[in-house]
């Protein structure tokens, strides 16, 4: 019997395994940021340990940093403390830091791939659940807790149980106006927010093969919203093309050797998955979430479910509490729902491709008077590229705020918070209660759907604007 992509990468990284114990898994690349790393360095210091391979850990600043100004004198003191602590820790332990003062900084899951650190066949971890993003390159990438950050720093290894495998096949041609974001929201709506618990997803099928790396990253990014710690896509020419020439990519002969190996990283024809799900891509529509977990989503042309359409009591209870928080009603159509804030950005949809699509839609239009809209590029490189292409002007002229790179209103750790009761059309990945600010109500959607909501002041079917 053949092996799946996941099994190939897993097997190549098991250092040793005692009977009855989890595997000791080797980690090739480790990304850290200012929020989940300080206590890990604390643990190393407590035990007098050094970093085992400091050149395999890369640090940046994204979660807490303000996106209006890089002048730390103007920042809240706790964000500044975290940034200073990270600088000190990187200095003391010899770790590469992509600082806000340099030109590489950005959201850790945008910057890693941009720098070519993310490569097929690697194991990649970060103290952040959206590390699943890097699986788009055929890496096994997953989020870890702070204790595990310390384990990787000290030993370059983790103790891990082998997850099960789950093939998600998306076949066919995506309809007009239907994006990668809609595909992943549809998968989660169908399979549930916990449906992937204990599994690693492998996204396959003709719709996935046709996608750009940016779109594949959007899909893998939200694997965690579907309950899976990791999601993978087999590398192919699109992947190699993306990596080639990036700062940390292999060069010369090494490149040829690497690509030859990477080509073997596909699930074998006879490989068996523990579970499988198939979606017809041509039947998908733009999606919007109405609830407080990412599985609570419907096509934009659809309505919020009625409680009696749901199978079990727990799901109904979940629906009631979600709708109470969201101020929405069962059976209500999604189209026409007013929005107060539009947020375009995050590690899900803060890449140049996302900004291009959104800019195309708002060009020559105005953000509705009732709406505050902001665009937060995923990295300094995305920002610079967008400015080169004049996207910043298109957004500014339409009435969007144009910000510096970071997580921003995706998790509202900095001052970018949506007010209580406000509806946020957001391209990020989580619609949890209070995620975008205490009391804020998130409606997750694609960048073009969010851009359309900004212009109309309410949720609309973007396909009506594209015609």
């Amino acid at each position, binding site marked *: 019997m053949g092996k799946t992509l996941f099994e190939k990468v897993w097997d190549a990284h098991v250092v*040793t395994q005692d009977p009855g114990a989890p595997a*000791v898994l080797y980690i090739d690349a480790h990304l850290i940021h200012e929020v*989940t790393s*300080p206590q890990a360095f604390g643990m190393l210091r407590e035990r007098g340990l050094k970093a085992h391979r400091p050149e395999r850990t890369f640090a940046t600043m994204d*979660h807490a940093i303000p996106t209006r100004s890089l002048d730390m004198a103007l920042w809240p003191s706790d964000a500044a403390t975290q940034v200073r602590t990270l600088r000190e820790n990187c200095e003391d332990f010899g770790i590469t830091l992509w600082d806000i003062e340099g030109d590489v900084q950005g959201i850790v899951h945008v910057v890693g791939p941009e720098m070519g650190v993310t490569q097929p066949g690697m194991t990649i971890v970060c*103290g952040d659940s959206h590390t699943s993003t890097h699986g788009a390159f055929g890496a096994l990438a997953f989020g*870890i807790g702070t*204790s595990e950050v310390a384990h990787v720093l000290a030993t370059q290894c983790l103790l891990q*149980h082998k997850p099960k495998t789950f093939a998600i096949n998306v076949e066919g041609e995506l309809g007009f106006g239907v994006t990668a974001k809609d595909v992943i929201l549809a998968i989660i709506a169908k399979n549930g927010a916990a449906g992937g618990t204990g599994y690693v997803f492998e996204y396959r099928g003709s719709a996935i093969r046709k996608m750009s790396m940016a779109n594949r990253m959007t899909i893998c990014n939200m694997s965690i919203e579907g*309950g899976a710690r990791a999601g993978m896509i087999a590398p192919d020419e699109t992947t190699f093309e993306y990596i080639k020439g990036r700062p940390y990519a292999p060069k010369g002969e090494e490149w040829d050797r690497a690509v030859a190996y990477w080509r073997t990283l596909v699930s074998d024809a006879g490989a068996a998955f523990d579970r499988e799900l198939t979606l017809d891509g041509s039947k998908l529509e733009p999606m919007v979430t109405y609830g407080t977990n990412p599985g609570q989503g419907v096509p934009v042309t659809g309505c919020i479910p009625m409680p009696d359409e749901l199978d079990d009591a727990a799901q109904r209870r979940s629906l009631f509490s979600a709708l109470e928080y969201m101020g929405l009603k069962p059976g209500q159509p999604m189209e026409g729902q007013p929005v107060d804030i539009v947020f375009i950005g995050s590690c899900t949809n803060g890449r140049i491709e996302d900004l291009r699509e959104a800019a195309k839609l708002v060009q020559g239009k105005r953000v509705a008077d009732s709406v505050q809209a902001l665009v937060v590029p995923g990295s300094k490189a995305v920002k610079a590229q967008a400015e080169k292409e004049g996207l910043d002007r298109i957004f500014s002229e339409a009435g969007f705020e144009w910000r510096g790179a970071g997580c921003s209103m995706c998790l509202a750790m900095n001052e970018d918070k949506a007010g209580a009761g406000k509806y946020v059309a957001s391209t990020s990945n989580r619609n949890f209660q209070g995620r975008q600010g205490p009391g804020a109500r998130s409606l997750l959607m694609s960048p073009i759907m969010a851009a359309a909501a900004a212009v109309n002041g309410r949720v609309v079917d973007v396909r009506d604007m594209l015609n």
Partner: protein
Amino acid sequence: MEPIQKLTARAVPLRAENVDTDQIIPARFLTAVTKEGMGDGLFYSWRYTREGEPKPDFMLNDPAYAGAEILIAGRNFGSGSSREHAVWALTDYGFRCVITPGFADIFYNNSLKNGLLLAPLPEDAVNMLLDLVEEDPTTVIEVDLERQTVTLPDGQEHHFEIDPFRKMCLLQGVDDLGYLQSKAEAVAVHEARSPY
């Protein structure tokens, strides 16, 4: 890490599914660079009004449940962000065990690494426990890690699963780091043959 063998304590019922780590500890409490005092932010938005007043109808604010060390909640507990702060908030507040029908993966791992015992039970059993402690907050529950059981005052016993390795770590109070360090030789062999 403190070894855990058995816990005999009262419990707080939290009737909610998909309790995500943003609810357990909102992002604005993640700005600390140490673990201390994290319990102050536990369930902050559910515990306090926007003005910072305790909400009387939230279970943790009910004096009848003060000092309880077990938390009982709905399925898919700990979903979302990988923040270990969620576990630190629970343990700093005084919880030593969480009972639900199921936990999200990263949260599960983080908890056991911090000596927070997780006991997954079938949904029916969890619902019954919720009823029981809602009705009588003085109910004392016994969680026995060695035997992998949750026992009610009337002697009713429920079995829970835990990975044998994790169980051993909790019983002995040992953590992963020491174990990983002992594998240095095997790591060196791997490094010598790995392309990365």
